[in-house]
């Protein structure tokens, strides 16, 4: 029997289904890891050992023929996901104590396949941020260097996987919130095509951008999890009406890899550029053809994103007013006073900033100038991708312009923080699938920090993206690297 944290989800499920280990043993191993690491890395906002043990016992008693592809695999879930038995507080004080009365479709599908939720992970409040410093409960720490960010907003889920606490975890990717933390913690993250996975049970931030997205330490794991979660859902009308995703076999020989010059511009850190170029050279060695492409409106993506996302957020977050759930502050005793006092006390600074910005761009006199204009530029951004994909099969570039930055270094500069997302937001605006896979390391002050490579596909070509990601993974050893001090079992 292999050590718990040495296996990916597919391997762990196979060993468990065959009786080499039990689901109950997996849960104890996962909680040993929580006990060893959580106080240092700040991964979970809440866990539920009792429910995990109960589910594991049920799975251990299940007949062999009923055991699913994730049989007995512990999973960590971002705290903006609705799961019965857990507190889904979005790392916000306004939702303190909130227990959803139902379980999200995507979680139910994974549980039906044998996965066992163990806890809800830390995140930027309401998924607004790129470093976890907007969490009301303090930031998660990067296992490769605990003084640095693990990225965001799905920070705790990335760390749970990168530190070996669970083999798989779920995040949500609205502007890069899974790909960027995956890149910064040295693991695999995959954002499916918009609509591939039902959003029913995901607490909304930017409804036209949000997509539930998995983290794992292997490409085959994110492939399996995406496959199991995908498919239509009568509770989400934006869900794609097509069969569950199945991966195609990918031959890199002759594969046309588009390289956008805009993704290799001046803001890219020198060593990140070097790792990305080395990855492209490897693809060429493996038979792929490099095709220069252009995404000319990329420079406007951050502006469009922060207009659209904040507009949608200001609308979505209007529901948090102290009436139906969460915290209430009475204020001056009037209804309007109660709304305002509740929201003032419950939301953190970045969420307030984005609600104000979103309210502004939607307000009378400004709507056409900001929101209407941004939606038109969004069309141009999508057309850029459509034009590029006429001459290439996938687009490849860096995921993040820099490796993990020091906690505190951007906290008071919202614009600098927003620019962390410059390479990931165009994908969400166009609704495309994209993966981040480990592509090497950079040395920063004597610490090795991971770098991620982003692979972007055309609309609905999720399987192609994952096939290319798997080919890259098989040709390299980066995905096998583990954080030396904070990977469970690494310390004696």
């Amino acid at each position, binding site marked *: 029997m292999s050590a718990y944290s040495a296996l990916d989800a597919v391997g762990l499920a196979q060993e468990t289904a065959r009786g080499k280990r039990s689901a109950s043993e997996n849960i104890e191993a996962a909680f040993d890891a929580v006990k060893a690491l959580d106080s240092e890395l700040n991964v979970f906002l809440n866990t539920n050992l009792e429910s995990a043990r109960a589910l594991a016992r049920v799975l251990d008693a299940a007949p062999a023929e009923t055991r699913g592809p994730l049989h007995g695999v512990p999973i960590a879930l971002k705290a903006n996901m609705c799961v019965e038995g857990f507190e889904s507080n979005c790392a916000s004080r306004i939702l303190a104590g909130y227990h959803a009365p139902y379980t999200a479709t995507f979680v139910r599908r994974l549980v039906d396949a044998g996965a066992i939720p163990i806890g809800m992970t830390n995140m930027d409040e309401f998924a607004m941020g790129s470093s976890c410093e907007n969490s009301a409960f303090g930031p998660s720490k990067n296992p490769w260097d605990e003084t640095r960010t693990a990225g965001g907003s799905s920070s705790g889920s990335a760390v749970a996987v990168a530190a070996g606490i669970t083999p798989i975890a779920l995040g949500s990717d609205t502007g890069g919130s899974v790909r960027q933390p995956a890149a910064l913690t040295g693991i695999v993250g995959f954002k499916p095509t918009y609509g591939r996975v039902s959003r029913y049970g995901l607490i909304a931030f930017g409804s*036209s951008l949000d997509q539930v997205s998995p983290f794992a330490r292997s490409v085959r794991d994110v492939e399996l999890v995406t496959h199991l979660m995908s498919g239509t859902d009568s509770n989400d009308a934006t869900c794609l009406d097509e069969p569950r995703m199945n991966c195609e076999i990918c031959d890199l020989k002759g594969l046309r890899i588009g390289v956008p010059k805009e993704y290799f511009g001046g803001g890219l850190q020198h060593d990140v550029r070097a790792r990305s170029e080395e990855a492209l050279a490897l693809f060429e060695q493996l038979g792929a053809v490099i095709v220069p492409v252009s995404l000319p409106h990329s420079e406007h993506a951050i502006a469009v994103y922060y207009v659209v996302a904040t507009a949608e957020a200001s609308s979505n977050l209007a529901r948090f007013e102290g*009436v139906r759930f*969460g915290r209430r502050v009475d204020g001056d005793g009037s209804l309007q006073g109660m709304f305002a006092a509740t929201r003032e006390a419950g939301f953190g600074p970045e969420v307030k*900033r984005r609600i*104000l910005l979103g309210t502004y761009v939607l307000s009378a006199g400004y709507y056409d100038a900001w929101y*209407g*204009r*941004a939606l038109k*530029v*969004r069309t141009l951004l999508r057309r850029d991708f459509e034009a590029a994909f006429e001459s290439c099969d996938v687009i490849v570039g860096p995921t993040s312009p820099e490796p993990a930055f020091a906690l505190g270094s951007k906290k008071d500069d919202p614009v600098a923080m927003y620019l962390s997302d410059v390479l990931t937001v165009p994908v969400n605006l166009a609704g495309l699938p994209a993966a981040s896979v480990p592509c090497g390391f950079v040395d920063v002050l004597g610490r090795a920090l991971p770098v991620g490579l982003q692979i972007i596909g055309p609309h609905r070509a999720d399987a192609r993206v994952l096939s290319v990601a798997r080919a890259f993974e098989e040709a390299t050893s980066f995905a096998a690297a583990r954080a030396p001090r904070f990977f469970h079992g690494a310390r004696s």
Partner: protein
Amino acid sequence: MSAAHDPKPIRQAGALVASIAKLARLAVTAEEARSIEPQFASILKQFEGLELLDLTGVEPLVSLSGADTVLRADEPEPSSSADQMLANAPERVEDFYCVPKTVGGDE
């Protein structure tokens, strides 16, 4: 957005944020409004490039789903009970959410 295009120029530090905060049902103190406003200005400055694009004839991208929107059959299905839905309410009376009184007069 440049001042020339701004239909409602800012007259007083914090005034813009204070007026938006009212729309957003956020209680923001004058001091907070003054501290947020410079951040707000620097964020909006990043957006200025959008003004320079010629968008004649470009349709807004309103929905990524477009014609793919899938509606379920319009048939009643079992749903959560009132108790389940009200379990998170800060205050309830019987099967109702309770809020401060909004109409005048005595009970």
